[in-house]
């Protein structure tokens, strides 16, 4: 029996690892959307983060620089989106889609020379505790620092939005940019900051994939995770904690269905592959039924172009 329990511990550990990129990207996008900006470029920003992180690791041989660089690259590419939507007042949806297509193409081009290069081991914390404690060891210990950060992030995000002045300003801008502007808040600046923060988190999410989760560069390696993160934000009705729950469910069922396929359940493979999507949506819809709360959490001005009267 002890074998089974430790196996379950390892399974839970791997589920946590697989949900990290979703948590990071969705938490970042959540802040962006709370300020009223709909950035559909999550996938593009993630993949740019993935290639720049990996490339910097190979070039500098320094994981710290690689991580920071991946975040910066996410920031830079989101700056393009910010400039287009906030300064040139382009449509959020079209610009975001373009950003994703651009990101995927650019990363493929940049990554040509990095295909097939093996990645480096990313340092893991408390590796001795992981081995010595049964069941809880593999769950709680032996992960990268990024994973711990990711699991704290939704709580920090929630605290930021609910309890801090800056969080209040972000929510106010998302609720009514015109009112915020008339109160003397620099709406465009706030939105720029939120867009750049979202870009940074997406970059980090991408680097987690290429440096830690599957340490190598493969073209299009984000494989739609950016879109899942986007959907998570909406289905979680812009609540950071629900984003965390959704990401774990999605990660969990993705891993479980792999095991189910391996064991050879008599269920069509296509259904198993669709299962994580299905279950995540069902669970999030069920836990966010309160229409009152949805109204209060939804950024009213989401995706609308704001321009200042002159």
């Amino acid at each position, binding site marked *: 029996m002890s074998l089974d329990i430790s196996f379950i511990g390892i399974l839970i550990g791997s589920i946590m690892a697989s949900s990290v990129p979703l948590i990071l990207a969705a938490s970042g996008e959540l802040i962006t959307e709370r300020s009223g900006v709909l950035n559909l470029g999550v996938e593009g920003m993630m993949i740019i983060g993935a290639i720049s992180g990996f490339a910097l690791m190979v070039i500098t041989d320094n994981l710290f620089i690689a991580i920071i660089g991946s975040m910066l690259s996410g920031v830079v590419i989101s700056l393009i989106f910010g400039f287009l939507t906030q300064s040139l007042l382009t449509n959020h949806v079209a610009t975001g889609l373009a950003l994703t297509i651009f990101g995927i193409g650019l990363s493929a081009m940049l990554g040509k020379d990095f295909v097939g290069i093996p990645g480096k081991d990313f340092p893991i914390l408390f590796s001795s505790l992981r081995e010595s404690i049964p069941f809880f060891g593999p769950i709680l210990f032996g992960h990268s620092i990024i994973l711990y950060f990711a699991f704290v992030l939704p709580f920090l995000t929630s605290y930021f939005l609910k309890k801090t*002045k800056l969080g*209040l*300003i972000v*929510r*106010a801008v998302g*609720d*009514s940019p*015109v*009112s*915020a*502007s*008339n*109160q*003397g*808040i620099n709406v465009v600046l706030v939105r720029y900051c939120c867009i750049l923060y979202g870009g940074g988190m997406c970059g980090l999410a991408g680097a987690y994939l290429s440096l830690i989760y599957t340490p190598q560069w493969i073209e299009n390696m984000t494989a739609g995770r950016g879109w899942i993160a986007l959907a998570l934000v909406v289905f979680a009705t812009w609540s950071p904690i629900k984003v965390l729950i959704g990401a774990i469910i999605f990660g969990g069922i993705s891993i479980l269905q792999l095991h189910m396929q391996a064991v050879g359940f008599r269920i069509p493979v296509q259904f198993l592959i669709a299962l994580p999507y299905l279950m995540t949506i069902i669970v999030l819809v069920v836990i966010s039924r309160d*229409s*009152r709360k949805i*109204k*209060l*959490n*939804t950024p*009213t001005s989401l995706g609308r172009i704001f321009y200042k*009267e*002159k």
Partner: protein
Amino acid sequence: MATDLRISNISKIYPGCIANDNVSLQFKSGKIYALLGENGAGKSTLVKILSGVISPDNGEVYLNEKNLKLSSPLDAKKNKIGMVFQHFNLFETLSVFENLSIDATEDNKSLRVKINEILKKYNFSIDLDVPVLNLSAGQKQKVEIIRCLLRSPKVLIMDEPTSVLTEQETEELFISLKKFCDEGILIIYITHKLKEVLSLCDEVAVMRKGKVVSVSQTQNEKVETLANKMVGQKLAKIKKKINISKNKDEIFKVKHLNFYSDDPFETNLVNLNFSVKKGECLGIAGISGNGQNELFQILSGEIITPNTSIIFRNKEIAKLNPKQRREYLMAFSPEDRISQAAVPELKIYENVALNNFKSSNFFEKGLVNERKIKEHSKKILSDFSVNTDNVELKSQFLSGGNLQKLILGRELITAPELLICYNPTWGLDVGAINYIHETLIKINDQEKSTILISTDTEELLKLSDRIAVIYKGKLSKIMPSDEVTPEKLGILMGGGSID
């Protein structure tokens, strides 16, 4: 310390329109000043300049002889100019306290103390921890006023503050404003309601087409003199002859109208029963947000409610959609001209074609018969004195008044037996209001019926034969309008009872 606000030679030009043309005015604390004018006279532009939202092309603003540079709302705030906009600048999903704390400099604890002091001093009662969307319009306005008071303003500008208030709330507001004035705050009161100017303000400046046309003491003015200055011409007086005859047929009858919604922005309707006689105007009063939207949508067929019976000309129509109801000769004029009644991006004749009644042959074999629609549209434009004869014009370029005339014309040209309209003169100027009121009275004279849902009590008293009040989704008893006074309506609209 006395405050002296002077604006000198302010001009603001938008493409195709001079919003402010060399405006100079002077205000001193201790008095309440009215800025009077029709829509589009340039009042709002002027106050936007004073509050730093927009900057003028020309001209200066002086506060106590100091030249102010108002290039952002922050500058106005720093110079202690407070502003309550007509369309509230609140964050609906945030709590009252969050709304007030967003630009506060002190920490939350002392801010709360400060707010509570203001609440006590002026007798306001507002729960600080509910989201703003749960508040009534009057309460929202108080939140805006508190926001200004927190910064101990020297100047307080109120932009059309009573357009959303009940009679009682208006009185309360006036009492507060007089208090502020006594405390040395300079108050500038923007409005197009003449009676308010006379009852509240000491001095009045009248604006027309971007220019100040007169500045005078209100004690020397009367409603008529102010109206003539404002419009620039003499206005005909409208008064309807109330006709309540018991033995006329009931043309429209609603029974057991119930509506339940989960949406916190919608109001539930509870067991509404009423009927309309031939040639009668039934007025439904109420502060906006008490169920008028839902009621209008149910009457027009946009929302179908179960177990409701609506009889129109002896036929049950409760399950019919708006198009089918139109075919039975009902017509509708919704509140929101731009998004509900007309499509602003479409041309005038295209908008006319939108309610394609069967008899008109606008469409043949699925194709649009443009010539017929255009002829028909031209007739509407001339019959309802819309100030253009170009049916190719996009509807968004019509002013509110002309758009409303077009919409009414479109609805009335089929000679409907019943017209249901919701705030038909909302936001219009006196001239257009007069025209629309005349039109609505004419309908009744022709033995056609109307249901007038309106938040404007004066309009209701002028046009209705019988009046009921809707409050929180419930309908009061229906009263003949000669037994109704504005005070009575105000009490009912605020949820009180009059018996």
